[in-house]
C-alpha cells in the first residue's frame, strides 16, 4: 500500500526498517529473559502491590474507621484516587479510538501500550468504589438482578449506579478492543515460538491466520469499535463528573463538569502515557518506533487539553462571581484562600502554568522536560480532584459542620499500593505481549517509514493511484 504523503510530514518509523525487522524489534522483548532494569522495576512494583494487599486487608478487617473520613468529609483520598485512575485510563481509548477516527498515523506507535494502560488503570480505579463500601462482602447489592429481597432493585436514578454501569462497560469494551487488536500480534509471536510458549500463544491468538477476509472484518470491527468507544470514553468520565454535578452543593453543582472532566482525563491520561512510553522506549530499545514525533504529538495534546482545563477553571471562577450566589462565591474563595489553599496552588501551577512550556518546540521534543512534565501533570490532576472533593466538602453551607481531613497511613498505603498494582500489571504485559501494535506499524511503513517520508526519504511522493 502506498498513498500520497506530503513531504511536510516527518517519519514515524526510523532506522530504515523492513517488515521483518519490525517483527524482530517488537517481539524480542517477549522472547528473551527480562533485563535487570525490568527485574528491579518489577521488584519495586510487587512490593507496592504487597503494600496494597496489606492495606486492603487492614481496611476490610478493621473497617473504614481506619481512614480519616468523617460526616462532613465523606469522600477523601478514596474517591480522589478513583477519579484520578479513571481519568488516566481515558487516554488509551482516546489514542486507540479517537485518533483512529481522525486517521492520525502516529497513534500506531503508542496505542497498544496505551490501551493496556487503560485496562490496568480501570482495574486500579475500580478498587476504590468497592473498598470504600466498607462491607465489601455485600458488594453484589449494587447489581440489578432478580432477588429475594422484594425483588429490591438498585437506584437507577443515582449517578453512583450510573458509574457502576459506565465503568463496567468501559472496562469490557476497552478489554475487547485491546484484545481484538492483539490477536494478529499474538499470532506473530505464536509463529515464532516453540514448545510451551507456542502452546500458550496458540491459545491467545484464537486461531488467527491472516486471511484477507478476516483482516477486512477486523478493520471493520476496529472502526466500529472505535466509533463506539469514542462516545463511550466521553460518557464514562461524564458520568463520573455527574457524581458531583448532580448534587446541590456549590463547587460541585455546575454544568461545565462533564466536558471539563473529560478534557482533564485526557490531559492526565496522556501524561501517564508519556511517562510509560519514555521508560518503555528506553528499556526495550524501541526509540525508532516511539519517536520524538510521537512524544511531541502527545505533548501537543497535553498542551491543548491543559488549556481547555484552564479555560474551565477561569469560567468556574468567573461564573461563581457572576452568579451573585454567596455560597458559590464562598466555595471558590475557600478554594483559593481556605485551609486547603496549597492544593489549589498545586493544581493551578501544575495544570495551567506548567504545560505552557510546551509552546516551545525545543521543550516539546525534550525527553527530560517531557518526563518531568508528565509527572507534574499527574500530580496537578490529583490535586484537582482533591480540591473538588475534599476542599468543597470541608466547608459547605453550615459552618458548624466545617471540618478538616488528613489521610491516614492506610489511605496513603492504598494509593501507593495501586501504583504498585498498576506497574506490576504493566510490567507483566510488557513481557507477555508486544507493547507496540506490530501489524499496524507495518501498515504505515510505506507511508511513514523514514526511507519513504521526511527529509531522508529515498522515494518522494510515492503515489500509486492504481492501488486505489
Amino acid at each position: 500500500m502506498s498513498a500520497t504523503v506530503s513531504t511536510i510530514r516527518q517519519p514515524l518509523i526510523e532506522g530504515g526498517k523492513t517488515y521483518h525487522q519490525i517483527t524482530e524489534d517488537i517481539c524480542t522483548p517477549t522472547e528473551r529473559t527480562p533485563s535487570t532494569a525490568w527485574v528491579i522495576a518489577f521488584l519495586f512494583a510487587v512490593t507496592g502491590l504487597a503494600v496494597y494487599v496489606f492495606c486492603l486487608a487492614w481496611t476490610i478487617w478493621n473497617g473504614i474507621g481506619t481512614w480519616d473520613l468523617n460526616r462532613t468529609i465523606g469522600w477523601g483520598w478514596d474517591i480522589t484516587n478513583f477519579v484520578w485512575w479513571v481519568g488516566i485510563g481515558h487516554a488509551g481509548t482516546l489514542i486507540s479510538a479517537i485518533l483512529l477516527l481522525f486517521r492520525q498515523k502516529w497513534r500506531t506507535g503508542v496505542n497498544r501500550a496505551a490501551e493496556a494502560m487503560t485496562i490496568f488503570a480501570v482495574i486500579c480505579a475500580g478498587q476504590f468504589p468497592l473498598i470504600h463500601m466498607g462491607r465489601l462482602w455485600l458488594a453484589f447489592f449494587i447489581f440489578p438482578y432478580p432477588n429475594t429481597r422484594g425483588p429490591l432493585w438498585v437506584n437507577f436514578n443515582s449517578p453512583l449506579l450510573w458509574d457502576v454501569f459506565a465503568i463496567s462497560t468501559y472496562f469490557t469494551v476497552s478489554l475487547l478492543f485491546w484484545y481484538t487488536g492483539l490477536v494478529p500480534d499474538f499470532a506473530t509471536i505464536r509463529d515464532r515460538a516453540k514448545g510451551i510458549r507456542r502452546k500458550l500463544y496458540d491459545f491467545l491468538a484464537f486461531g488467527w491466520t491472516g486471511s484477507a477476509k478476516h483482516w477486512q472484518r477486523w478493520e471493520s470491527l476496529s472502526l466500529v469499535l472505535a466509533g463506539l468507544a469514542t462516545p463511550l470514553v466521553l460518557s464514562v468520565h461524564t458520568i463520573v463528573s455527574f457524581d458531583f454535578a448532580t448534587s446541590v452543593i456549590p463547587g460541585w453543582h455546575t454544568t461545565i463538569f462533564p466536558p471539563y472532566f473529560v478534557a482533564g482525563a485526557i490531559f492526565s491520561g496522556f501524561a501517564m502515557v508519556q511517562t510509560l512510553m519514555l521508560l518503555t522506549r528506553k528499556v526495550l530499545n524501541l526509540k525508532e518506533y516511539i519517536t520524538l514525533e510521537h512524544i511531541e504529538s502527545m505533548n501537543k495534546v497535553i498542551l491543548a487539553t491543559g488549556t481547555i482545563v484552564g479555560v474551565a477553571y477561569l469560567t468556574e471562577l468567573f461564573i461563581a462571581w457572576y452568579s451573585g450566589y454567596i455560597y458559590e462565591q464562598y466555595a471558590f474563595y475557600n478554594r483559593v484562600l481556605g485551609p486547603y489553599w496549597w492544593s489549589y496552588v498545586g493544581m493551578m501551577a501544575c495544570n495551567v502554568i506548567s504545560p505552557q512550556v510546551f509552546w516551545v518546540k525545543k521543550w516539546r521534543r525534550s525527553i527530560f522536560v517531557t518526563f518531568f512534565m508528565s509527572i507534574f501533570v499527574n500530580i496537578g490532576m490529583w490535586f484537582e480532584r482533591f480540591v473538588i472533593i475534599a476542599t468543597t466538602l470541608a466547608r459547605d453551607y453550615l459552618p458548624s459542620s466545617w471540618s478538616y481531613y488528613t489521610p491516614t497511613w492506610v489511605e496513603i498505603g492504598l494509593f501507593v499500593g495501586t501504583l504498585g498494582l498498576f506497574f506490576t500489571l504493566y510490567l507483566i504485559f510488557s513481557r507477555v505481549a508486544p507493547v507496540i501494535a506490530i501489524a499496524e506499524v507495518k501498515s504505515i511503513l510505506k507511508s511513514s517509514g523514514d526511507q519513504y517520508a521526511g527529509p531522508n526519504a529515498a522515494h518522494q511522493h510515492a503515489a500509486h493511484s492504481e492501488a486505489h
Partner: protein
Amino acid sequence: MNQFTFEARQKATLGGFMILGLLCMGLTAIGDDGHYTRLWSNYLHNSVFFTGIALFSLFIISAFTTAWAGWYSQFKRIFEAYSLFLIPGLVLMLVIVAGLWGGMHHLYHWADPNTLDPNSTHYDPILVGKSSFLNANWYTFGTLVFMAIWIFFAWKMRQISLDEDTNGTTDWNHHHRLRIWAAAFLPIAGFTSAAVVWQWVMSVDSHWYSTLFAWYCGASWFVSAIALGIMSLAWLKSKGYYERVSSEHLHDLGKFLFAFSIFWTYLWFSQFMLIWYGNNGEETVYFFERMNNYPVLFYGNLAINFILPFFILMRNDTKRKYGTLIFASILVLFGHWLDFFLMIKPGVLHTKHEMSGHHGAGHGDAGHHGTDHAADAGHHVADAAGHGADHAADAAHGVAETAAHHASSAFEAGFSLPGLLEVGTFLGFLAFFLYMFLHNLSKANLEPKNEPYLGESYHHHV
C-alpha cells in the same frame, strides 16, 4: 478552473434575498411595539448566529492546521472566506452596541438603569451584583476588542495563505508560520468566545447562569459552519468548480456533521440533566420557561439537531450521497438557528414584559403590566433575601405567575414561534453572509497553491 467568478445573476439572486430580508425587517418594525423588540431580537439573533459561524470557521481552520489535516486542503478557501465575515459581523454587532448606548432597544434587562437605582420599583440587587461586568462599557469592549483580535487572526492567516500561493516553496515556510498563528488562535478563541457569548447571549436571561453555556453555543456554531461548508462545496461542485473534490471529502465532512451533532447533543443533555437533577429554582427557571411556553421549539430543537441527523447520517452510504448530505445540512443549519432562537427570544420577551410595565401605555400587552409588576416585585424581594430554602418556592411562585400570564398571553408573534418575518429576516442575513462569502472566494484562487497537503487532498481515499 481555479478562479471563482461571482456572476451577476448570482449577485442579483442574493441581492434579492437581502432586499427580502430588509423588507421583512421593515414589516417587523411596523407591527412592533414601541421599542421594536421583535425587530431588535431578530437582528441580534441573526447577527450572533452568523458572526459565530464566521468565528468557528476560523477555529476549524486553526484546529485542522494544528492537527496536520491534509484532506481538506483543496477547499480550505471556503472556510477562509467564511472567516472573513467577521468584519461585517463586527459592523452588525456594533449596531447592537450603538443601540445599547442610545437606549434604543430593551434586549438586555441589565441595560435598564432602573435596575441599579435603589429608589426604583425595578431595583434588582442581583443585577446590581453583576453590574461591574454587565454594563455597556464591557459589552462594547468585548465586542470591539475581542472581535478585533479575531479579525486580526483571520486577516493574518489569510495573508499567509495568499502569500503561499505566490511565494510558497517546498520548505513549507508559510505553512510552518501558519501553524504557529493557528495554534495561538485556539486558546485565544477559547477564552474570548466564552466572554462574548456570556455578554451577547447568556446575559439575555440576566438572572440565570450556566458554566457550560459558552461551550454549548460553540458546538452549535461549529456544526452550523460544517453544514454551511457542505452546502457551499456541493453548490460549487455543481457549478463545475472543485472537480477533484470527491465523495470521499464529502464523506469526511458528513462524519464531522454527524459526530459534532452528537457532541452538541451531549452538551445539551449535560446542561439540561444537571439543572433538572439539582432542581435549583434559580437554574430551572430557564428550562421551565422553555419547556412550558415554547414546547414545540424545545422538543423540536432536539428532534432536528439530534434525532434526525443521527439516523440520517449514521449509515456510511448516506454520507456519500450528495442529496442526503445536503438535506441533512439544511436541517442542521436551520435547526441550530432555531437553537439560538430558543436561547434569545424567551429572555427578550420576559425583559420586554418587565420593562413595558415601567413604560406604561401604548403597547399591546398593557393589560399585563399590573400582574407583571407584582410578580416581578415579588420575585425581586425573594431574590434580595438571599437564596434560602424559601427562595425556590418564591422563584417558583414568581415563575408560575410569569408563566401563568405568559400562558394566558398565549401566542406572541415572532417569539413563541419564528414567524414568516423571522424566516424572511434569516434568509436576508443568510444571503448577506453568502454574498460576502462568494465575494471573498472570488478574490483568491479556489485552491491554494504550493500547499504542502494538496497532493494528499487530491488523492484522498477513505
